[in-house]
């Protein structure tokens, strides 16, 4: 029983950064912007989180720094694609490349240093209830943030007028502009929100998941988060499901390696990436359905007439 609970807990820990980054990107894509820089924003969040935590000794300050770094870094993308109408794919790629380089440079002196870890929640009484106690009341704070964030985004997108406006921009920025909706402003805010989420996800990596700084420690999670959004057909609750499936794959291959299953460890390590490919194939196969779900103006540059 304890093993099961522990595995479930580690799955949740592995799923949390994927979920947060993907939920952020979902909002961005719902507004019609494709930001391929998730990996870069995430790793910048990770290094900022670790650094701030390490220097101040407070994991909470680290977490705030991670969020702020993600947001600021995404602003770079926003200025380029929204104000200068650059190609979103190329700009997103360059954000990732820049993030990987910059984080490596900033983090040179952090390599091998002991980090600080965000403590798990511990509610006396509740947390010690067998099985569910730990799962529900004994996890790290970011886990709760991720669940709340998912619920909040769901509510925001589908129950509020502002959320409706955001979705309408993703469907047709030209129509939205004709109605007087501030397309660029909405998109700026969406991109920055997505950046903050990616930063938070990175912060989770370096302050909870493995509280240390390792170069390239995001290891493709930003890209998997992007794939999750497609997999989820741009629906928040499916992102949640997808993130936990991937969390399970990630943890599963680690456990398989630990148990010494007679398969090369490299093959197990490549499972999450292969799973991403397989899942993408399965979900995109139905062209009609994909077209229905994809925000129609996704990735299209928008320059208003003046």
């Amino acid at each position, binding site marked *: 029983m304890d093993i099961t609970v522990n595995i479930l807990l580690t799955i949740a820990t592995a799923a949390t950064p994927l979920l947060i980054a993907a939920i952020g990107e979902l909002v961005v894509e719902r507004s019609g912007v494709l930001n391929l820089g998730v990996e870069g924003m995430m790793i910048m969040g990770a290094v900022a989180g670790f650094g701030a935590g390490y220097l101040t000794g407070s994991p909470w300050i680290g977490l705030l720094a991670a969020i702020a770094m993600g947001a600021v870094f995404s602003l770079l993308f926003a200025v380029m694609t929204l104000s200068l109408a650059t190609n979103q794919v190329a700009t997103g790629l*360059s954000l990732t*490349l*820049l993030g990987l380089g910059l984080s490596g*440079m900033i983090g040179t002196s952090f390599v091998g240093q002991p980090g600080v870890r965000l403590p798990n929640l511990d509610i006396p009484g509740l947390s010690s209830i067998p099985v569910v106690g730990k799962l529900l009341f004994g996890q790290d704070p970011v886990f709760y943030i991720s669940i709340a964030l998912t619920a909040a985004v769901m509510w925001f997108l589908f129950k509020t007028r502002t959320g409706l406006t955001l979705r309408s921009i993703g469907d047709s920025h030209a129509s939205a502009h004709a109605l007087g909706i501030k397309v660029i402003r909405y998109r700026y805010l969406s991109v920055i929100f997505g950046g903050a989420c990616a930063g938070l996800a990175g912060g989770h990596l370096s302050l909870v998941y493995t509280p240390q700084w390792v170069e390239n420690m995001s290891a493709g999670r930003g890209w998997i988060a992007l*794939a999750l959004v497609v997999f989820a057909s741009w629906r928040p609750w499916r992102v949640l499901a997808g993130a936990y499936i991937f969390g399970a794959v990630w943890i599963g291959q680690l456990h398989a390696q630990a148990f010494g299953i007679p398969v090369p460890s490299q093959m197990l390590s490549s499972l999450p990436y292969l799973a991403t490919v397989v899942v*993408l194939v399965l979900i995109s196969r139905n062209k009609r359905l994909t077209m229905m779900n994809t925000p129609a103006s996704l990735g299209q540059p928008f320059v208003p007439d003046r």
Partner: protein
Amino acid sequence: MMRLELVKRPQRSALFSMLSPFIAFALTIIAGAIMFALLGVNPLTAFRIYFIEPVSQVWQLHELAIKAAPLILIAVGLSVCYKANIWNIGAEGQFIFGAIFGSIIPVLFPQFEGPLVLPLMLLLGMVGGAAYAAIPALLKTRFNTNEILTSLMLVYVAQLFLDWLVRGPWRDPQGHGFPQTIQFGDAATLPQLMPDAGRANWGFVFALLAAVLIWILMGRMLKGFEVRVLGSSPRAGRFAGFGLSRMVFFAFLLSGALAGLAGISEVSGAIGQLQPVISPGYGFTAIIVAFLGRLNPLGIIAAGLVLALTYLGGEAVQSALGISDKVARVFQGMLLFFVLGCDTLIHYRIRLIGLALTKPDGAAKLEAAPKLKEAR
């Protein structure tokens, strides 16, 4: 309160399509100077060590050519993809698979020698790269799967596969347990161009040749026209009778083959054996090279040399000033950012507009918004 406003040009600006890489380079230098100053280094000293010292002797120019060759080879292939609006970002994986395929002969059949070995290796390298690139192409055409994500995921898989090979079945039994294959024999080694002057090998010649051939293909041939039409307006391309699926395969196989050629050239020329890591991110840096060269093969030759210099410069500042060689990555990333930003000037004029200068309400007379700066 200021606002940026883009004004579409009636025609693309020929001036800015030439100038934009240079403006971008200048902006990168300025940003780099600020970065060095923040790191506590005199920017002038840093730039001398970064950009000038690494290329002040002939043997260093050879090193530059060694670094530039894979960048140019890969970037030239990627430029065809990007012109066709097909986003292959998995060149790093195709590079690795080219290296692996090409190494089959020297690793598994080391006794096989003769003048045929090298051409066969190069051919196998191209086949390996193309085959690995065929996977995202197939998934895109057959299952409508986003090629950006699949080609990238396959990079991680390729890196892990190479890691397994050199630690497992292909490990040199006499290698004291080091994760590497046997050293390639003479017949399997790409010859150096001028062994007395430096290490540069035939890979650089391949790169120049590929660039010129692709330049002719894109500018002079019907196939190149097809690439450009499908990339810029796919519907017009379909109206022209050009098949998008065929184009996806063409672009992926071509760029995969060139990345594979780069991979096997690197292994048989500069390294001499397979190791767990055979590329300092050439496949990703080549994306920057492609854009810095404005997706023009001849521009890419120049851009490849510039980016190769950032690698050498990164190593130089690390040894001379104790700054992390990651500084090279930062330079590369900034360069790409500025290039993309400057490219906006080709299609738009940029106006900065002051918002606070307009009167709040009423007051009827409308004047043209005050222009503070106009880039024409």
